[in-house]
């Protein structure tokens, strides 16, 4: 459960995120949809506590990230927009490293790694060094690393960006799997199909503000458009002109 109230962030004179509020429920996939530069990544960064908001309150499962950052962080798993792997370590070592940092030890960690290998189909690459990996393989390793500690909340920043069909399917599969387990999944994207295929709720952002919020059907109804893409363009576009 992620709850953000009146998040605000400015870089110099640029208002990146302007009084944004939304919440993401357990057992649901929440999509953060918006064009490039809408403030999606900045919002996610504030939620996982790497960036301090100027104003507002963010709670992860009821824990204030500003007050108890370590506790809140152990309840979230994050896939940032760049995978950020170490080329000289193997996939297993990556997962093990983060597991160790989360304080998972010995047999429990081995069991967890076994699970992740199965879910993400990592068998063939698990003991190879990351240096030669394809983009899809890298994303899988980064994903496995992000959820090694079995977090209740999962934040994915454009997870399917630049992936081929097979890898995209694997990531979608994982997201559905996580939802079925009753977790709170939130991901940002600017790809319509992605959002409409997966999301239970959609938060549309444009120019640092929440423009609209609801299910895909609700958004269509709101804008009176036939497709989500048209709805999106009309929401973001209208707002852009108003601002």
């Amino acid at each position: 459960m992620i709850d953000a109230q009146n998040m605000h962030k400015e870089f110099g004179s640029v208002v990146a995120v302007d009084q944004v509020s939304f919440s993401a429920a357990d057992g649901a996939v929440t999509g953060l949809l918006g064009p490039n530069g809408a403030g999606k990544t900045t919002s996610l960064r504030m939620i996982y506590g790497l960036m301090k908001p100027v104003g507002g309150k963010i709670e992860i499962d009821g824990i204030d990230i500003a007050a108890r950052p370590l506790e809140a962080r152990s309840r979230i798993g994050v896939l940032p927009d760049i995978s950020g792997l170490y080329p000289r370590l193997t996939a297993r070592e990556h997962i093990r490293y983060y597991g160790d940092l989360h304080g998972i030890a010995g047999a429990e960690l081995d069991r967890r790694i076994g699970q992740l290998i199965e879910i993400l189909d990592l068998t063939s690459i698990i003991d190879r060094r990351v240096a030669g990996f394809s983009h899809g393989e890298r994303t899988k390793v980064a994903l496995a690393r992000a959820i090694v500690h079995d977090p209740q909340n999962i934040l994915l920043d454009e997870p399917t960006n630049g992936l081929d069909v097979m890898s995209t399917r694997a990531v979608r599969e994982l997201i559905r799997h996580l939802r079925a387990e009753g977790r709170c999944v939130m991901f940002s994207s600017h790809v319509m199909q992605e959002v409409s295929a997966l999301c239970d709720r959609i938060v549309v952002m444009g120019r640092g503000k929440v423009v609209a919020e609801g299910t895909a059907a609700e958004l269509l109804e709101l804008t009176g458009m036939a497709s989500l893409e048209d709805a999106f363009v009309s929401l973001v576009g209208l707002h852009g002109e108003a601002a």
Partner: protein
Amino acid sequence: MKKIWVVARKEWVDGFRDRRALYTLLLGSLFGPLMIGFMFSQIASQQKGAQEIKVPVVGQEHAPILVNWLTQQSGVEIVPGPADPEAAVRDRKVDFVLVIEKEFAAKFRESRPAPVKVVSDVTSQSTRSKVSRLNSMLNDFSSETGSMRLMARGVSPVIVSALKVEQLEVATAQQRAAMIFNFIPMFLVLALFTAGMPIASDSTAGERERGSLEPLLLNPVPRWQFVVGKWAAASAAANTGMLLTLV
């Protein structure tokens, strides 16, 4: 606290898989010993070189007495000198040349200072000890001859020496050789820096460049523990380099 160890171990493994870091560590730590070894062998070969010298002499015919005396000294071989001594030394064709002037014979006979020239190049390191050996032989000849002349005139040669200076050197030969080891602290510092630098830079700036810093900081570990862990890994590498140098 255990997390510090986790971070340090990861950086250590990562660093050791980096060929560049590994080579720098080895090179950095071997540089000192190699340098000292080189200096030792250089000094040894110079001293050895001075024991057996070839002396090119120009104008041997003017001073058979000096040439004979030189030939009798151990390890000395007299060879004919080049036509243009200065050019030959400048071009490093010969290490040095002893030139005996024409008026040597006449002046020597009259017991006046007989002129000889030693042509050498001070910038040539390897010939320095040979030249100084030649100079000291010439001094010996000069004072020996002088003493004999005084005795021939019924004067004790002792009276020309007002002082009797004795150099008492307390350092043993090993101790003098060990002066080279004064460089060791410098090499240790050098090894410390070169060995620790790759891991230090890779685990901080490198982490940022790769974009792996952001996910790393998302782990529920206080930042100071990351810093200490990375510092520990880098200083462990630095100390390894230093120990290698010592060994």
